[in-house]
């Protein structure tokens, strides 16, 4: 993101991100198991949301099928970890992500050339339904019952081996890897490639007239986002220790969209903030039958109608009001 005047300075934002990570790391010391479990899931969803916004907010691609990559990554890891237990788990995680990136590159090669905007969105929706149906009826993946007994692996690091099944080890592993993945997305966003993505998002034709190969960069964005999403899916399997086809359902693909809108599409950390806000919302209303959806829906509506900048947009406006008008360009 550009350091527009209403935003905090880069240093401050980096500090906030570190603070957030520290809070995640400190959590097991102060909260019960249920909360820690939720926090691990949220950490992965935060990154998952960031990857969706790499496509949407940065490159202008709307995907309705992002969860299919989460699912493919998850199932691919679970399957590979069982079939090839001798492979280093880090390689298996990375492999799941690479598989997703490769699939996205292949799909995008055809899909992005032929379709844009709502067509691309609906096409990804169709493809995600195919993934959902294939998983639901594949015996090797456990059909509707799910892929059960996904183990948290032992992590050989050369000088020592960490047993991720012990205590909160896997939770810490998730937090650290999530931070790493968020870092990758951050780097892509702020690099030369990210600048090109933003240019394409704002005016693809103008970008083409600068000699930018628009389709190639769109494909790159789609593949990177899908690859990283695949790794978050891969991490999720051992966390829950079971994967059901629900992770590939189109309603799961709606999640990152909701995170992004709730947090603020124009902000890099928007989807992460949105995922966090969403989790708080759901946790707060979890015991109320039906009310939970109504409250969530109503808040989303309010965001869209009254605060289209999302949570971070509202914060930025507030900062602007406090710091006064002289910082306006």
């Amino acid at each position, binding site marked *: 993101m550009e350091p527009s005047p209403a935003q905090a300075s880069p240093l401050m934002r980096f500090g906030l991100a570190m603070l957030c990570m520290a809070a995640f790391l400190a959590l097991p010391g102060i909260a019960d198991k249920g909360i820690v479990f939720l926090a691990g899931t949220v950490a992965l969803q935060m990154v998952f949301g960031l990857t969706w916004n790499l496509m949407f907010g940065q490159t202008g691609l709307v995907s309705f099928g992002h969860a299919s990559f989460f699912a493919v990554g998850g199932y691919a890891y679970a399957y590979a970890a069982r079939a090839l237990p001798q492979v280093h788990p880090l390689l298996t995680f990375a492999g799941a992500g690479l598989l997703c990136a490769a699939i996205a590159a292949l799909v995008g090669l055809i899909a992005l050339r032929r379709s844009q905007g709502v067509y691309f969105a609906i096409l990804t929706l169709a493809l995600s339904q195919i993934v959902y149906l294939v998983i639901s009826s594949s015996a090797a993946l456990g059909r509707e019952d799910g892929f059960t007994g996904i183990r948290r692996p032992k992590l050989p690091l050369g000088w020592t081996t960490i047993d991720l099944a012990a205590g909160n080890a896997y939770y810490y592993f998730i937090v650290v890897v999530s931070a790493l993945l968020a870092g990758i997305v951050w780097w892509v966003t702020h*690099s*030369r490639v990210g600048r*090109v993505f933003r240019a394409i998002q704002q005016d693809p*034709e*103008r970008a083409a*007239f*600068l*000699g930018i190969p628009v389709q190639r960069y769109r494909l790159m964005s789609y593949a990177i986002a899908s690859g990283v999403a695949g790794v978050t899916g891969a991490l999720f399997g051992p966390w829950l220790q079971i994967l059901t086809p629900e992770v590939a359902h189109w309603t799961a693909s709606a999640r990152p969209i909701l995170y992004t809108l709730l947090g603020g599409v124009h902000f890099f950390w928007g989807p992460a903030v949105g995922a966090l806000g969403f989790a708080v919302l759901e946790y707060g209303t979890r015991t109320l039958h039906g009310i939970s959806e109504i409250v969530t829906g109503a808040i989303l509506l309010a965001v869209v109608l009254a605060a289209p900048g999302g949570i971070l947009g509202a914060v930025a406006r507030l900062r602007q009001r406090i710091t006064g008008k002289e910082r306006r360009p």
Partner: protein
Amino acid sequence: MSTPLLEATGLFKSYPAVKVLKNVNLTVAGGDTFAIIGPNGAGKTTLFKVLSGELFPDSGQVAHEGRDVTTVPAWQRVRLGFGRSFQVARVFSDLTTEDNVVVSVEAHRRNAGLGQRRPLAWAPTAEVREGVMETLREVGLVDKRRVVARLLSHGDKKRLELAMCLALQPKILMLDEPTAGMSPADRKSATELLAMVKERHGMTIVLTEHDMDVVFGLATKVAVLHYGEIVAQGAPDAVRKDPLVRDIYLGHGGAGAGHA
């Protein structure tokens, strides 16, 4: 002049109801500032788009340095050295002025095969920043480099778009109505800017324009388009004196100035 830089022969283009271009032939030599003028609806924009590669003609040929580029799409022509500005300036409105040019410089460097020395660094390299500052200085936008482009004035957006084109170091600069919608003062300074740019870089310019002061202030060659046909082509003075042109075109606008 041996091979003309840009040559159009026998261009025809029709839309369902109307023939827009009827056997258009023109020759742009290297170093020319070539202005396409004509009354509204004469087919200027269509001709411009055919030359830039946004539209393909129904028949006829567009050649660049002797090579047939008739069906080479616009974005590929950029690599041949075409730079294009739009009638309503198109800039990346949510990026800062500076970043608009950064994207352009980086796109040019990438296409020219000038790699980044540190591929992992996210900030623009020193060379890129240097190029950006030089271009911004040239169009006079250094002070506004941190302003988000959306907030720039109309004239400044045009300047920024010109900067983005210059960053590509084009051999042919294609300008569609470079002073459209400007106040007379802005128009004058834009004309001066273009003259200066031309003098410094010596590239060829192809432009369409309404304003005759701009045209006769800049052009070394003028083509007059009337109902899809070129009725006169040549040096500005010759075209200005052409009785046919005076009759069908300049005659209505009075004294050859102002809007046609």
